[in-house]
């Protein structure tokens, strides 16, 4: 009897506690988890102001736009780079020194790197060295040897190499498939991060479209990086250009936001604009105008990029604490070809169901304490100007803290339902609050 009573009492107590906990939880105000660190997303940009434009004003403009790492292109590792470093330091940003010399050092003569960057290395703005852009796999062994030496000489500095997109040719990648190319780079060069470019915003006689393999590229690079425990950096097309009969359109703010949020959905820890300053035309490409034109005048895109950078810098200190679990794309049945990925996430526990009018990308995240978050993107071509109503049924989630172009809002999810209409190109970082 006593024993029974005891058990009954125990059960009653447990039930009472459960009721109390539920009541307490229900009444508890929605709060975001707090993070003690202050991690920042890297916001890089290709093409720093050319030598004749290296001054306080142009570098202040870079910093004001939210870019925190600018890459030299027209200046080599020379006096111009020193001046650029000085301007970068004054404005609190980092600068990548371009070195045409470093990339051609043979793998058995890496000692040639000794002292090569001594005059730059003590600058607080020295972010590292831009060593190679779009190397074929045949260069990896040499780059690996250079990187090994570089780490000894300049620990903590970026040994910057940027890789080809999926739509590069097998010849460009020295005959490797794209997956082989990325994996071989990671294994051979042993980088601290994986950077790649992919310019998805297209235009044809029939109108606009986005590249079919845009998500596939993010998927392959993010998956390979994740397996290796490395972050990845993705390029953002911030200029229009024509090459060999194809036309990459001039982007607007919707296009910029769309690219940035898609990169974030796959867990990018760095975004990089191609380009900041407008490059001069060459034999391969004819360029329109980037954030700043060739004469140094800011274009409307400058403000667009600044807006998006400010937006993501509103939550990057949180986002950077989360690990990407995977990415869902919807719809799955009769999906348009451009939604194809090889590692599509089948389920993410708090999500019971998703309904959307148009294609969406859903990046799924979790932090070390088990807190979860989403990056939700309207995956229609931003130029098609389609809104996209999305309804997500969530299990065990009382509310969300949502970051987007309008700032931050915390709201309850009535019955676990989260409903939102995404504007063209819009993305959101959504913390799921239990």
């Amino acid at each position: 009897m006593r024993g029974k009573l005891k058990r009954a009492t125990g059960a009653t107590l447990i039930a009472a506690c459960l009721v109390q906990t539920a009541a307490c939880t229900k009444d508890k105000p929605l709060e975001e988890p707090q993070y003690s660190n202050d991690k920042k997303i890297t916001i890089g940009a290709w093409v720093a102001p050319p030598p004749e434009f290296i001054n306080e004003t142009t570098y202040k403009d870079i910093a004001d736009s939210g870019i925190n790492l600018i890459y030299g292109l027209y200046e080599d590792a020379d006096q111009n780079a020193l001046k650029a470093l000085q301007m970068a330091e004054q404005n609190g940003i980092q600068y990548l020194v371009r070195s045409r010399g470093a990339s051609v050092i043979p793998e058995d003569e890496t000692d040639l790197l000794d002292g090569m960057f001594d005059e730059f290395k003590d600058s607080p703005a020295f972010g590292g060295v831009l060593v190679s852009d779009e190397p074929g796999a045949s260069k990896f062994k040499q780059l690996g040897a250079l990187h090994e030496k570089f780490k000894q000489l300049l620990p903590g500095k970026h040994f910057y190499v940027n890789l080809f997109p999926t739509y590069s040719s097998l010849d460009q990648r020295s005959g490797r498939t794209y997956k082989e190319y990325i994996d071989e780079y990671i294994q051979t060069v042993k980088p601290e991060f994986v950077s790649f470019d992919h310019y998805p915003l297209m235009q044809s006689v029939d109108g606009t479209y986005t590249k079919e393999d845009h998500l596939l590229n993010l998927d392959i690079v993010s998956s390979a990086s994740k397996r290796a425990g490395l972050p990845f950096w993705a390029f953002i097309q911030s200029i229009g250009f024509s090459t060999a009969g194809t036309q990459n359109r001039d982007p607007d703010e919707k296009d910029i936001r769309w690219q940035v949020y898609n990169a974030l959905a796959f867990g990018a820890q760095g975004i990089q604009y191609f380009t900041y300053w407008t490059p001069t035309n060459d034999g391969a490409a004819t360029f329109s105008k980037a954030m700043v034109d060739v004469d140094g005048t800011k274009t409307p895109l400058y403000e667009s990029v600044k807006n998006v950078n400010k937006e993501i810098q509103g939550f990057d200190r949180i986002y950077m604490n989360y690990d990407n679990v995977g990415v869902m794309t919807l719809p799955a049945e009769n999906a348009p070809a451009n939604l194809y990925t090889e590692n599509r996430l089948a389920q993410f526990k708090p999500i019971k169901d998703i309904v959307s009018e148009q294609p969406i990308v859903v990046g799924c995240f979790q932090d070390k304490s088990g807190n979860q978050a989403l990056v939700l993107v309207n995956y229609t071509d931003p130029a098609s100007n389609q809104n996209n109503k999305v309804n997500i049924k969530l299990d065990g989630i009382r509310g969300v803290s949502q970051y987007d172009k309008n700032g931050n809002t915390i709201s309850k999810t009535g019955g676990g339902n989260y409903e939102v209409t995404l504007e063209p190109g819009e993305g959101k970082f959504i913390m799921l609050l239990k």
Partner: protein
Amino acid sequence: MMKKSATLSIALAAALSLSACQGGNSESKESASSNPTGSAKVQETTLKISYFKGGLGEEWIKQSADAFEKAHPGVKVELEGDPGITEKMGPRLESGANLPDVAFVLRTGWQRWAIKGYLADLSDIYATEIDNGKTLKDKLQPGIAEYGNIQGKYWIVPWADGATGLVYNAQMFEDNGWSVPTTMKELDELLPEIKAKGIAPFAWGGKVMSYWDFPVVGWWAQYEGTEGMESYKKMEGPEAYGQEGRLKALEEFERLLGDESNSIEGAAAMDHIQSQMAFLQGKAAMIPNGGWLETEMRNSTPEGFRMKMMQLPAIDGAKETKVNNTMGGDFAIVPAKAKNAELGKEFLKFLSSDDMLKLFTEKSGSVRPFVYDAASVPGLSEFSKSVIDIWQNSENLYLYSENPVYYSKFYDWPLAGAPYMMIYQGDETAQSAFEGNLSYAEENWDAVKADLGIK
């Protein structure tokens, strides 16, 4: 339009995604409608064809598909026209996703696709008799019959062919009594006459600067002659890039565009459509272009506008004057993992009959690189006739080399692609571009060979 599918639960959607990815390109289902007898059901098979949607229009493929369906009961053709299909094919072949059964794409490095095993071996259809006792290989233009052959097998079928060079406003020429120039000297004499009428001699677009390849490669080939170009195509060493004809041709370009008054205003910022519109609006007398121009601009051509292609004016010192830079090299493939690869091959054979070749010419106004009487096709426009006349009565140049150094790395301008914009902007001269390409080839030849595993 996606509401139905998007309402699926995640689990169901995940299950379906696999089939969507793997089988999106083909389907089979029971159908009675396509059975001529109507008595018993036949298996309906879908043949998915992806094709470059551009200057040739779409009527040729639509009508070809209709004809194939009629000849093959139970087959339904699904068409995917896409201006970006060429660059999409690489990722598709690698991933195996969204594969068509046949693809018609622009010239690109297909050889690596073949080496990687992404392409179906087409050797059997090359050896198959198509009509009049001729195999597909027999029917191809001699200059391109071996284009699809590496490692002893045939992997692609050449698709589009034609003539390129300078197109002129025929009515404008006639109204002003201008003779069509046959030499560069005559062209030079004509330019002031055109400008005196307040008209720019040339329309062109800086966003498609490679269109200047059409006349420039033509001048190069005129200067070197067939023997010289065959020597170049052998690509036995970097000295191939030192042919004098290359320099002479670049100098002609430099001279023509070095005089700003020879170009329409704002040309450097124009794309191909804008420059072609300017030509159709009578703002320029000539335009570097190809046999697809009329079809591409059909919906924008003013009523009564007349254009023709001219035999490329001959460069001083030309060994041969009647040379046509075909810009051939566009091709069709059957992916090795295509759902209906055999049906895809059947389609390529089907398109190689004389009747279908003529249908192509009738609907596109252009030609395929086969030996057939394209000029006899009824209803050809004045422009198409001029194009076909050049194609049938010139030494047709198919500029490609079987040397991997060429098709894997260097192509024709190994330093940084075609140098026209740099010359136009004054960043290079014809001489420096010529020398730069030669030096680059000399300095990198052995390294590229080593990289490609060639001894």
